[in-house]
């Protein structure tokens, strides 16, 4: 019987091999021990010797083709053995039936031969396109607090965490369960301000990279480093409350993750002030405990809110929120208004401000601001929004740049209205001028788009009748 020449296993974990080169061709006379062919492995080329002496026949192992370990690649016929060429129908790999060869070896090696049908996903790539977690998932809470809340049917997002970094701990959940003041949730339900993730609660579209380090935690070591700079007794230490911590965290996050871009413009207020006087004078009176009072009294800020909302409707591309996978284009203009309260600030929102009348906006704003000061806002009254307005004009601040409050893409910083000399048609005149600075999230609102928005705003402020129609 002729001697079979197989593709031998020459390396650990080798299931297939390639013949890189034959040193003998069909019909050649070979001697046992002669180099027949060379196998290419991951590591090196291995020379394979002839297992017998004779004539090389049926060289079926092609160069450069993957061949299973153990498969015959040729036959060596001894001188006294007769040879009949194989019929082509029998295929090119294995002509002679050989026990144990056709299987290509163990099941393990045959599995290894199968090409993987799908490209493997790099394991550490975050799953793109998944909606971020809502509600409870956003809240910093211990595993125990989560489990207790889950068992009690409580929504953690309504709770104020008393633990470090505003973390909701077991005691907070237990307190909430034992004093059910407002029905389903809690004695410790947040009042206007600020448990983790509530005061500036992100909209559902904000992406939540799960492993992002929570920015804004002053590293514990830093405390000592700061205090070391001051003499003992020269200061009081006032521990942060949750609102302070939340403000700190949110602002660091906003300022370090959002590429801010600033645009400043001056607006003349004279027409607006005149219209405001007119409108306020026309306000119907209503009876109250303290005597008759007008049913509304517009402030300049109310008109700024309305103008900003209408500007966003006029430049809808700027009414947006950035997310990693998509631009969120809002259909309504919801304007947050920064309200300073003792110990911090909060931003209640005038929803659909573009559709509301100035008097409605004005009255809503008064209500929101007063409840904000007594920390009575509901989360839905300060969460979300599509832009914000921050006005420091009452302090005489001329111009400043505000920090964007995500998920917003813009915030308008409003300075004081003051009489300034302006040059018009070559003449110096006096006008009441207010400087405004628009901060934009450059990922969502480019410079030109921001400018377009600001110009639309200025046009409404300077032509205030447009806000009445």
């Amino acid at each position, binding site marked *: 019987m002729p001697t079979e020449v197989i593709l031998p296993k*020459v390396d650990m974990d080798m299931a297939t091999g390639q013949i890189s080169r034959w040193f003998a061709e069909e019909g050649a006379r070979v001697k046992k*021990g002669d180099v027949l062919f060379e196998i290419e492995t991951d*590591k090196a080329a291995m020379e394979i010797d002839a297992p017998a002496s004779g004539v090389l026949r049926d060289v079926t192992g092609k160069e450069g083709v993957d061949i299973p370990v153990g498969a015959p690649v040729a036959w060596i016929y001894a001188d006294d053995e007769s040879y009949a060429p194989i019929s082509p129908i029998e295929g090119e790999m294995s002509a002679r039936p050989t026990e144990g060869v056709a299987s290509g070896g163990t099941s393990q090696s045959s599995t290894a031969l199968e090409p993987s049908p799908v490209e493997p996903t790099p394991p550490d790539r975050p799953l793109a396109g998944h909606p971020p977690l809502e509600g409870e998932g956003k809240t910093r809470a211990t595993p125990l607090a989560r489990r207790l809340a889950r068992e009690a049917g409580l929504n953690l997002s309504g709770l104020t965490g008393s633990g470090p970094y505003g973390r909701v701990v077991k005691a907070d959940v237990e307190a909430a369960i034992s004093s059910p003041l407002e029905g389903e949730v809690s004695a410790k339900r947040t009042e206007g301000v600020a448990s983790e993730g509530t005061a500036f609660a992100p909209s559902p579209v904000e992406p939540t990279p799960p492993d992002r380090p929570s920015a804004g935690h002053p590293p514990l070591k830093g405390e000592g480093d700061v205090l070391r700079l001051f003499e003992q007794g020269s200061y009081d230490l006032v521990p942060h409350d949750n609102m302070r911590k939340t403000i700190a965290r949110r602002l660091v996050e906003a300022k370090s993750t959002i590429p801010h871009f600033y645009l400043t413009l001056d607006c003349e207020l004279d027409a607006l002030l005149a219209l405001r006087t007119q409108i306020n004078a026309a306000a119907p009176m209503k009876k109250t405990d303290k005597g008759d009072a007008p049913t509304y009294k517009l402030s300049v800020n109310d008109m700024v809110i309305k103008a900003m909302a209408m500007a966003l409707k006029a430049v809808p591309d700027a009414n947006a929120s950035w997310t990693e996978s998509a631009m969120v284009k809002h259909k309504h203009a919801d304007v947050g208004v920064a309200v300073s309260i003792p110990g911090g600030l909060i931003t209640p929102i005038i929803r659909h401000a573009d559709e509301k009348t100035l008097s409605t906006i004005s009255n809503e704003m008064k209500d929101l601001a007063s409840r904000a000061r007594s920390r009575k806002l509901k989360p839905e009254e300060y969460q979300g929004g599509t832009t914000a307005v921050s006005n420091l004009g009452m302090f005489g601040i001329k111009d400043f740049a505000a920090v964007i409050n995500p998920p917003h893409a813009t915030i308008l910083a409003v300075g004081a209205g003051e009489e300034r000399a302006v040059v018009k048609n070559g003449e110096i005149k006096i006008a009441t001028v207010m400087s405004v600075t628009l901060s934009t999230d450059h990922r969502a609102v480019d410079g030109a788009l921001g400018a377009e928005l600001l110009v639309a705003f200025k046009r409404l402020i300077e032509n205030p009748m447009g806000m009445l129609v």
Partner: protein
Amino acid sequence: MAGASKAVADSRANLPFVYRQYSAEQLKQVLYKMYLIRRFEEGAEESYMRGLIHGTMHLSIGQEASAMGICMPLGEDDQITSTHRGHGHCIAKGAEVKRMFAEFFGKTTGYCKGRGGSMHIADVAKGNLGANGIVGGGIPIAVGAALSSKMMKTGKVVVSFFGDGANNEGAFHEALNIAAVWKLPVIFVCENNGYGMSTSTARSTAVKNIADRAAAYSMPGVIVNGNIFSEVAEASYKAVERARAGEGPTLIESKTYRHRGHSKSDRNRYRTKEEIEDWMSNRDPITLFENELREFGFIDDKGIEAIRSEVAQEIADGIEFAKASPSPDVSETGNYVYTEQA
């Protein structure tokens, strides 16, 4: 083993050691086993190349006389520690090839139930405490086994096989020193096949002969031609006698050659084809032994042919046994890590 009768012994007075010491039957059995080792390794190599055996293996083809010669004077109770090139030691110490094949195929009927493979082949019942994947790893263990023998007064002798590569390991030196200081019944057998993987002893070892190291530990250092069965067996016989007499250890250097590469991924770049060819054609231990047996009239061609075909049958049966044996269940991966406690 029982020696040859006195009359026979007299007629062999001028023959080499083994022909004086052992019966014709015993010597034929030696030839049988040398063939068994050779064919076992060839069968394993063939199975490996067909992908039936996993991992790698280190073949001792060419070193059969060394394994057989050292084990010749050992009794069944005596013990050995072996090396990654240990198939020959295992067979020489009495293992069955079918259970060795089963181990190589990773089957539950293998000596290690499929957990050890070629590199950790063992047969504890026959005194093989295990091949070792760590160069020099078995040497201190053999000394420990010899300490057990001495403390328990069992009279056992322990042989530690290792290669030339191990003679530069710290374990070799520490173990030889302890064995010498405590006069333990242990024999250190260095099978010097010339290369530690690819590095020749000339390039790796400061002494010319590894047996020279024995002087540092005040024990006899004996050099034998590892391809001549009688020479190896004679040296082993003397060392065993010395050990049993409580005189302490011996270092035997058995100079031999492996026909195959270090392992299955060796390209033989560090030695020439001529060198290999010379050892295979002119110094093959089986051929040498066969010639002597024939020359001294212990066997004829027919007898040799009978041994060869008997061996071929045992090998074929062994492979069949291994193929037919069950593989361990994956659920049993955690077995044998610790002793199962009732």
